[in-house]
């Protein structure tokens, strides 16, 4: 068992339709492919493949919750659920946070692309309203509160899925 968690997957094919990425997800061979669009969240997945963590926030002054000073959403949303107006994209620079909670996954369901065992972690990042679910590259014992930094699978390594974001212990 290596110290670092690996993926057992091949990068998914992406179709660019206008600004949107459409993920090709073969279920029953080529003819049985599902074409799943990332829609307005495409900048997030493009960002991961380029090594950048992109989040959204509401800047609408009439938002009843954030009054124009929204916290970040990760996963991002294109529209604010509180005022229904489009949110703005922001890059989270050098994303670091701490482990809010976690589990050690011994075995996953059919098709799991992450090599078990691994830590699935929920990460609290400063300025982010939500708590991000991801996985940890390290296998050594961890506890709630341990600090982590975001890492990315980029370029030829990119899977074009949420697996392109992972964390490592600081």
């Amino acid at each position: 068992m290596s110290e670092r968690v690996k993926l057992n997957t091949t990068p998914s094919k992406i179709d660019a339709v206008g600004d949107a990425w459409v993920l090709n997800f073969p279920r029953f061979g080529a003819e049985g492919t599902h074409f799943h669009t990332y829609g307005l969240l495409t900048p997030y997945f493009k960002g991961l493949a380029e090594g950048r963590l992109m989040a959204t926030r509401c800047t609408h002054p009439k938002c009843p919750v954030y009054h124009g000073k929204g916290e970040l959403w990760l996963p991002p949303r294109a529209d604010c659920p509180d005022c229904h107006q489009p949110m703005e994209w922001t890059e989270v620079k050098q994303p670091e946070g701490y482990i809010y909670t976690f589990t050690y996954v011994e075995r996953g369901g059919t098709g799991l692309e992450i090599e078990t065992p691994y830590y699935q972690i929920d990460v609290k990042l400063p300025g982010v309203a939500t708590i991000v679910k991801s996985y940890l590259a390290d296998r050594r014992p961890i506890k709630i509160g341990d600090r982590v930094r975001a890492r990315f699978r980029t370029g030829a390594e990119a899977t074009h899925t949420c697996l392109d974001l992972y964390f490592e212990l600081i």
Partner: protein
Amino acid sequence: MIEFGPGNLRVPKWSRPVYMVAFGTTDYRKRYPEKKLDELAMMAFRMMLEENDLKLDPLAVKGLINFCAYGEFADHFQDQLLCEAKVHDYLGLNLLPNVGVKTGGATGGYTMLVGANTVASGYSDCTLVLGWERMDEVKTWTGNYYIASAACKDFETRLARNYASYYAPMARRFQEMYGVSEEVRAEIAVKNRGYARMSPFSQQPGKHTVKEVLEGEIVSDPLRFLECCAMSVGSAAALLCSEELAYRLTDHPAKLYIAGGTDTLRTGDRRPMRIPLLPHETEKDYEWLYAEMQKQDGRWPGFESFGATRFAAYMAHRMAGVQVPLEDLDLVETHDAFTISDLQTYGDVGLTLYGREQDFITSGECYLKNPKTGKQGKCPANLSGGLLGTMHAVGATGIFQCGEVLWQLQGKYDKFHGDPKMWQRFGKQKPSDWESLQVRNPRRGLAISHAGVGSHVTCAILEKAWGGGAR
């Protein structure tokens, strides 16, 4: 939404009361090759019509039905779209209207809610609520992937493809935040699987110990194998009626109240909220909890609690006039798909304050016979054996829970669980150490139906409606 508008907290007000008069069920098995799905539905339907001491002949009762609500969790498990049409046809109910309901693990509960609304509105005087699930067409770990399709496909499913791995982080956060020993969770598994030993319907009864649970195989740390429910096959059916019809059919109907709630599909998207208070709670009760959350970077409902369950209980308690849950409820059925979801729910429904959930276990009040006092527990939980011990054929589950509560209120636990012939019907032998789990003179019981990591929940309250039981 994290702040309610003035209209959002309106308590449901039905046009007329709704009664539950009969219940039927199959037994539950991990694999059930002996019967097709519609044949299982017929078993439940027939038991409902034929074995509930109704005052009319089964076919005469069938002749009163106006509407059918069907619960099925997942088309991909059944590998059949419009399964509702097949079942409806098989039960001989065409040309009556039916509707399929799908809200994940809470499908059974929401099917009860939809069925109740047809009676409450006057659309129907007599509604069949029937649910099923057939999870044995695929191997267990493919089944786990199918279930994990009920996590967010963009951001979560790929991170485990197994639902236990979405509950395990909740278990860890809960135990650290509230200082809960793992033995508390293990005790829940021992209790519910032990109660399942008294049920001829149960799928995985067992005499276990806390030590055995904790030393067992880990599914997703900290959750052990015996803390998780299993794939399940079976069907359950309930009959809901108007008041006039209920008393024509039985002298022992139960009044039904049921309400729903929701929360985000992804646990991490639950932004901090103020706790909507139940009738017996005050803001002062939670000053310490808010202070504690500040220290621990916590939030409500966060990873510890279920906002959907609290919202449903907020409504259902007010509909039913429940003031102090531990005093006013005589039994509960929680959605113990995992030990942790059972434990978390006690705070949501007000059996304890939030943060004190473990007291419900350690006080012994969750047992039929409180091991601390030797007396009947104040609010025995999951006497049916729950999801851990008896069944989680998902579309049937919320209906099954209400059915077990109905039979308890009617004093029929022994009739359906203690008759050796019922055990023989399912190819089983009644255990020599069988004990009755009938609650003494129960008046009200509650059942929680629960989906995802708390995305959809219903809270049903059934109340004895005869012999001075009616309000």
